[in-house]
């Protein structure tokens, strides 16, 4: 599959078709940042280096976006076509919690601590049918399996 059109291409490194989340790390104190930061807000160091966070985490908090956000949200939906979506903070191995859309939007299917993995979802469909993708976390498979986007 060809690379999808991304709203935020700088956030990923692709391993085959599988996205890995990218950010940065302070070279002096080791604090991690997503997205990549220009400087460290903890120790005030300007020295940062890229850092990869992988693609697996656990759900740290969640909500369901039940109404159509105003601009700058640009999904192309209307109040009539809008589908609620899940939003959560996902705790990565390093302890950083990344805010993300969730592929699940049902309260019964979400619980704090559940394992999740990174995927890409089309959040916008243009008038010409072209899709734009963003990142999301989905419930992780019992065994480690590659998540396909699209």
């Amino acid at each position: 599959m060809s690379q999808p059109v991304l709203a935020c291409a700088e956030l990923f490194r692709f391993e085959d078709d599988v996205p890995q989340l990218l950010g940065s790390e302070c070279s002096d104190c080791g604090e991690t940042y997503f997205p990549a930061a220009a400087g460290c807000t903890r120790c005030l160091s300007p020295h940062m280096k890229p850092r990869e966070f992988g693609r697996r985490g656990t759900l740290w908090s969640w909500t369901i976006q039940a109404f159509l956000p105003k601009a700058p949200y640009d999904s192309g939906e209307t109040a009539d076509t809008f589908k609620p979506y899940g939003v959560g903070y996902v705790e990565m191995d390093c302890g950083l919690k990344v805010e993300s859309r969730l592929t699940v939007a049902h309260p019964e299917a979400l619980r704090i601590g559940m394992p999740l993995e990174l995927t890409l979802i089309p959040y916008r469909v243009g008038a010409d049918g072209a899709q734009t993708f963003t990142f999301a976390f989905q419930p992780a498979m019992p065994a480690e399996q590659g998540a396909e986007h699209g």
Partner: protein
Amino acid sequence: MADDVAIIGIGLHPFGRHDSLTGRAQGAHALRAALKDAGVSWDAVGVAYGGSHDAGNADALCNDLGLTGLPFINVANGCATGGSALASAVAAIRSGMAEIAVAVGFDKHPRGAFNPHPRDWGLPDWYGETGLMLTTQFFALKTRRYMHEHGISEASLVRVAQRAFRNGALNPNAWRQREMSYEEIADSAPVNLPLRQYMFCNPAEGGAALVLCPASIAKRFQPKPVIVKAAVVRTRHHGSFEVFSPALAAEQAPSPTVTASRAAFEQAGVGPRDIDVLQIQDTDSGSEIIHIAENGFCEHGAQELLLRSGDTEIGGRLPINTDGGCLANGEPIGASGLRQVIEICTQLRQEAGRRQVPGHPRLGYTHVYGAPGVSGVTILQR
């Protein structure tokens, strides 16, 4: 204290929806009312701090009140605009810059949730475009985590809203003056679960103004001056859980509310147990619950019992948001923090009518919180 500052005039334009009035007109109404309350004319005011988020420059009030040449500083500090204006006015009087100062705020927001633009907040475009930059999401995410960590039930979220509307029904200036049943709130439409429609305040319109002077001369103007024992503003630290955060640090730090509150108590030389009546930022039910503990009024998790026992009601030992708070008054950003101060002054002056806290309260407290992580706290004494 020799350099204490007093509030000698309070003025409010009721919050709500006022289609025929500009935000500025509501600010001018509030300012005129505050000046009248203080018995001070506009040309006696030595410095003014004012703000509005969506209704133009506060300085434009001079076109209504009079072009006296005074230094008028426009304040833009999100939801903490009013608190920042007040803290600045207090500092100006203490420094000797002016004898009489004004803090004023007004606003008029479009209906529906705020729609901030990522670049204004130092954030990438995708954060807004992909639907992550909503204040309501933040409140819900922080509330959900807090409930999980501290054993807060959904019933507590309902109780906060119920009390707000119950108090609003006693307040002739409130926007929402109708009591709501437990079920009506608990069954209202999900907005950002766990928060539902009647657990959120709405952006609104209104104006609020204060006139201040050195406490030593306050009784010349006002038989019931209110002393500002502390007026503190603090911003976020690295690691605190704030609105508009694409990620949270591995190690969490206390919110700016905690630091502002501690500094205010220290300045005032009192503690949470000394406070008789308080205003706690209630953009939503969850935030109020979190803020009660962050401001030091109970341990984390103890809100559950506090709310169930009635302690936070007007007749309780810790009366919170006696005018209905943001939930019953709505939130015109520029004016909201000053509305809190005005309600505490009204309570300390024994002028709160049907919602008056019994026992002649002596010390009051206000707390405001807003994007991107700024808190303002005041401690007020009759």
